[in-house]
């Protein structure tokens, strides 16, 4: 196919030929074309099928507001559905296909739905698919989704990469049309840091689409000169192919930059970048969008917006038709006729709804006053239009203009409401703009070129002054005020056939009227009942005419009718761009323990614990599964010695003259009298008396403490303590800093723990039981002078220590401990063995400290001091929290020792039915105890502390299990604590 509709002129480079295909058909275009302009140049008017009725559709606009020409670009994993042909830049090798049809685009089998249109009007789904209720999810919805819809996904992983970024500026100018360029020039000349963002690949906005002059030169040339001047300024950053899609708090704007969409390949670079633009001030110069007039069969390929037809002629050197008519309610439509006629295109008629004289002289065109188009002919492409007086005009393109609507979207993103201006028949920004924003040009209702240029400069200068800078004195660029008179005219009442408003969601004038009749009269109801404006184009061309028709029905003014809420994004943002780099392994940061390298070389399987990767167990050759490894690690630790990297526990360095008092206030148990060289278990409560976190705190010196927290709560505890320090008790001299990552800390547990440590701790440090008893701590040196910290604490219940060295020596320390432990058959153990041993010992952990339990529930009620001021102790004493039959933490063992307990099981008294009403508590943690040779569990049960020996049922309806369990002490191993004091 040749470029039959190519005419002279335009901003395309005819020396660069671009080959592309549409539905497999080879076509050619030029550099500077969009896919839409190239398709039109090749005479391709039919480009897709509509969403609901599968009606043949063509290209309707020349910009991002396009509702019709949605196509799929590229192929394979790169396939992207629902791309607007009007903003897709043509590149050599582009493959495009139409979407939403079965069979070919020309003979869509689903077009049969169009014949059922009388049944498919607004509210059809709501009324039809009400019952049987169960059918909705299984039958109706899948069926509807299958028949309606747009393009399809590749179902493969997106091979492109995406990025994000942050840009800062004094003034953000949104839109590089006449007002935006004028604003950016003024701000740039004043020396402000300016970002000028525009969604197009060639800045200039309507200047590139019109034949109007600025400062005596062609508008497009002036725009290019302005861009050149701005580009030469160090303080100005021009971002093309960048859509500012949302206005957020504090002057932050969201913007999507399409970096490589115009290239055949991204070359491994990010395809798109999601920018956060931090602005001190902003000028919205987003221009305006033309809207259609609704009349019968106004959706045929060849019916287009008049401004778009002009854009194709002036910017792209393409005429959308050879026999063109214009249907307008305003002066602007006339320029389409004039510009096309000047390019030698036949203008058959100018149909003006107004009874007014010609706006300008258009050679060869009939001016038909006080008239309207009532219907059209030509299923897959316009053949003729019929006027209200019955006359038929043969045309292959009808350029329609129903006036222009300022692009107020971003002014409303923080709940601003636009106001109606009768003189221009349009909504303009209201008074309630996002802080820091000002609006200029057509977006503000200043519809003429001269007004846009003047206002752009004036608004920018006001913003510059507000920033405390001095505006440039240079005058605004000059242009003439072109005629812009517009008369309100929204739809042709005489039309019998369906008159389309929302082309993308197939909403007609009749649907709006029906919505009114059925009581859905508020604009928000109208939207949801008819799906008006809910498609990917968000009703940019459809909404205002539909609101006007609703206003007609209700007899209200447009101001009183109002608009629906505008929300970000202004145009669609791919999920890939929102995800950015956060995918796969880089979805979130990972943290490694100091001995990670050693662990990965020694058979460790890792588990994610928050962001940490911790060794879960260390498999040895011949072991059949994780249980083998874990059982062995437990047994060898309890029999000799085991080593576990416990670096992940939070460490907070607490210093200050008032550190003791501070700790006494954040912990529920007493800390005022902890001696230097001693460690104490500490329990933190929330303000409401629920347990928050637990850990140990060691007093390393007179004013120096080292606190440990659970791994999960390390950050939360630090944050809460910082709040307490700064806000609750600012008079205390106390200083906090995290040292979690600074020290590699290892638990060395088991009867041989001391013997092992004696081999690495330097002589002179006496770690005998007498000199360094249970709950002792101190600074030592290891391996010939390396500073280290030693704590005699035990989570496993064994004779145990935790030894810490500077983290960069951690991997080496693990090697040394294992080397020194050889003679004791020392084993490394992971989090599973750690868990088994703490359950055997009856120590509470995350499963028990779940944010719902109190110290009383945990059997530690007496620890909560009532003789001091500390967080949570008052509210922990509320009567409801101290009930006699409150749940208590106890141990459980199966009556039949061969049975395996299940965590999450609920306890039911023997003989009672397993119902919620009979629920006695639940099993929090279970493990197979290698030491006892059977399954054991911890759990909360009502009055557990007084029910030892009783047998209850552990019921898990999810697993369908019911096991008889005996209530026992939570301390399965060494209840007297002889081992850890050995």
């Amino acid at each position: 196919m040749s470029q039959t509709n190519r005419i002279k002129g335009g901003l395309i480079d005819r020396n660069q030929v671009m080959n592309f295909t549409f539905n497999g058909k080879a076509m050619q275009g030029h550099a500077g074309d969009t896919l839409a302009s190239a398709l039109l140049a090749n005479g391709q008017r039919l480009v897709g099928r509509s969403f609901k009725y599968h009606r043949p559709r063509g290209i309707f606009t020349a910009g991002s507001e396009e509702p019709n020409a949605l196509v799929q670009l590229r192929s394979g994993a790169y396939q992207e559905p629902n791309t607007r042909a009007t903003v897709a830049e043509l590149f050599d090798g582009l493959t495009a296909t139409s979407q939403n049809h079965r069979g070919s685009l020309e003979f869509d089998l689903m077009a049969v739905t169009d014949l059922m249109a009388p049944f498919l009007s607004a509210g059809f789904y709501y009324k039809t698919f009400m019952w049987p209720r169960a059918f909705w999810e299984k039958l109706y919805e899948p069926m509807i989704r299958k028949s309606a819809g747009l393009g399809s996904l590749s179902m493969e992983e997106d091979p492109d990469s995406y990025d994000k970024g942050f840009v800062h500026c004094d003034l953000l100018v949104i839109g590089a049309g006449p007002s935006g360029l004028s604003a950016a020039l003024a701000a740039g000349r004043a020396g402000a840091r300016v970002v000028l963002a525009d969604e197009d690949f060639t800045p200039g906005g309507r200047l590139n689409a019109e034949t109007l002059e600025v400062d005596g030169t062609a508008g497009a040339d002036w725009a290019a000169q302005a861009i050149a001047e701005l580009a030469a300024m160090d303080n100005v950053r021009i971002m093309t192919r960048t859509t500012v899609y949302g206005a957020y708090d504090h002057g932050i704007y969201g913007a999507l930059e399409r970096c490589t969409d115009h290239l055949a390949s991204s070359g491994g670079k990010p395809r798109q970048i999601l920018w956060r633009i931090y602005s001190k001030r902003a000028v919205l110069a987003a221009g305006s969008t033309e809207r259609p007039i609704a009349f019968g069969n106004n959706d045929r390929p060849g019916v287009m917006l008049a401004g778009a037809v002009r854009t194709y002629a002036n910017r792209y050197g393409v005429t959308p038709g050879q026999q063109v008519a214009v249907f307008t309610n305003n002066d602007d439509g006339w320029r389409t006729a004039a510009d096309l006629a000047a390019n030698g295109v036949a203008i058959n008629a100018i149909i003006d709804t107004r009874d007014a004289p010609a706006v300008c002289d258009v050679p060869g065109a009939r001016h038909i006053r006080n008239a309207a188009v009532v219907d059209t002919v030509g299923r897959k492409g316009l053949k003729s239009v019929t006027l209200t007086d019955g006359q038929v005009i043969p045309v292959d393109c009808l350029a329609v203009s129903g006036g222009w609507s300022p692009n107020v979207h971003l002014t409303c993103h923080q709940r601003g409401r636009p106001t109606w201006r009768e003189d221009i028949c349009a909504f303009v920004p209201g008074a309630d703009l996002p802080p820091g924003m000002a609006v200029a040009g057509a977006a503000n209702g200043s519809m003429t070129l001269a007004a846009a240029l003047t206002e752009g400069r004036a608004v920018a200068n006001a913003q510059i002054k507000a920033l405390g800078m001095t505006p440039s004195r240079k005058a605004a660029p000059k242009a003439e005020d072109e005629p812009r008179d517009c008369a309100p005219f929204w739809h042709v009442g005489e039309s019998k056939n369906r008159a389309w408003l929302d082309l993308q969601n197939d909403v007609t004038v009749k649907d709006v009227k029906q919505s009114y009749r059925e009581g859905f009269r508020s604009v928000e109801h109208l939207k949801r009942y008819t799906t008006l404006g809910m498609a990917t184009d968000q009703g940019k061309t459809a909404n205002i005419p539909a609101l006007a028709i609703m206003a007609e029905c209700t007899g209200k003014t447009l101001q009183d009718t109002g608009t629906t809420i505008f929300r970000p994004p202004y145009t669609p943002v791919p999920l890939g761009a929102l995800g950015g780099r956060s995918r796969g392994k880089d979805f979130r940061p990972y943290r490694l323990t100091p001995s990670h390298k050693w662990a990965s070389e020694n058979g460790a399987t890792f588990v994610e614990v928050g962001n940490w990767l911790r060794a879960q167990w260390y498999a040895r050759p011949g072991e059949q599964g994780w249980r083998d490894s874990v059982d062995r690690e437990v047994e060898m630790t309890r029999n000799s010695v085991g080593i576990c990297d416990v670096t992940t526990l939070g460490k907070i360095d607490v210093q200050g003259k008032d550190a003791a008092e501070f700790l006494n206030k954040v912990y529920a148990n007493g800390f005022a009298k902890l001696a230097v060289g001693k460690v104490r278990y500490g329990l933190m409560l929330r303000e409401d008396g629920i347990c928050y976190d637990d850990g140990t705190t060691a007093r390393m010196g007179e004013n120096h403490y080292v606190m440990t927290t659970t791994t999960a709560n390390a950050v939360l505890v630090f944050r809460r303590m910082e709040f307490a320090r700064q806000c609750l008790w600012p008079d205390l001299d106390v200083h906090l800093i995290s040292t979690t990552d600074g020290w590699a800390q290892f638990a060395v547990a088991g009867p041989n723990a001391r013997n092992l440590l004696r081999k690495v701790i330097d002589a002179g440090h006496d770690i005998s039981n007498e000199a360094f008893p249970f709950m002792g701590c101190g600074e030592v040196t290891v391996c010939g002078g390396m500073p280290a910290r030693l704590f005699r604490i035990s989570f496993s219940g064994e004779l145990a220590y935790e030894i810490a060295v500077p983290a960069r020596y951690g991997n080496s320390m693990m090697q040394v401990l294992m080397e020194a432990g050889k003679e004791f058959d020392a084993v490394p153990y992971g989090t599973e063995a750690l868990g088994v041993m703490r359950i055997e010992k009856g120590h509470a952990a995350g499963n028990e400290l779940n944010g719902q339990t109190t110290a009383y529930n945990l059997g530690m009620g007496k620890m909560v001091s009532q003789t001091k001021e500390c967080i949570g102790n008052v509210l922990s004493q509320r009567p409801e929290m101290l009930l006699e039959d409150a749940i208590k933490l106890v141990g459980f063992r199966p009556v039949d020792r061969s049975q395996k307990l299940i965590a999450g099981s609920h306890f039911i008294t023997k003989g009672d039915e397993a119902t919620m009403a009979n629920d006695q508590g639940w099993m929090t943690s279970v493990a197979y105890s290698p030491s006892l040779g059977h399954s054991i569990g911890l759990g909360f049960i009502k009055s557990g502390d007084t029910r030892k020996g009783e047998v209850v049922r552990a019921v898990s309806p999810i697993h369908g299990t019911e096991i008889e369990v005996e209530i026992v002490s939570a301390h399965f191993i060494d209840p007297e604590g002889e081992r850890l004091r050995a």
Partner: protein
Amino acid sequence: MSRPISLIRKGNVCVPDYTLTSAPPLAGTDITIGGARLTAPADLAVVSIALPLGGEAAAQKAIKTAFGTALPEVGKSAIGKNGARLVRLGRDQAFVLFIHATPDAEAVVAARLKGKAYTTDQTDVWCALEISGPDSRAALERICPLDLHPQAFAVDDAARTSMEHLGTLTIRTGENAYLLMSASSSAGSFLHAVETSIKNIN
């Protein structure tokens, strides 16, 4: 006193059975892509200094004596004797960064301050990357929410922020050079984040 088990007598000196070797997570990093170079400074010691409540003046005096430069304002850093850099992070908190290989940095600083301030060793809490070269700022733009424009972030300015979910301390160390410090346990993610940013602009 019992026999020193960990020491073996060799001739007249005692040497320990075991020695520990240092392996900082980013050691040896040196990557140049386009106009940006990424290196991990070797042997960078970090010690935090907290000013005691009511003892601020004495602490400031001690700092000035110890490092030959006054504690800068919050958000600024200053170079003192022997190239030590004092970074003021908050009203009562500062870091001192200096080159020091052995694991006694905190003791060294504490000795110099003579008990007038609280000190904590932060060396291994952090990992550090220096990004330098003309593309530095463009690369950081992809992950750093801070405004690093020369007008907004002068040489020696310092600020904490979050990059790719990682808490980061950023110090402008030169015309086109920034020292970035983040948690050492997530050093791999941090290096990946910064390196990806450089790759993405080239």
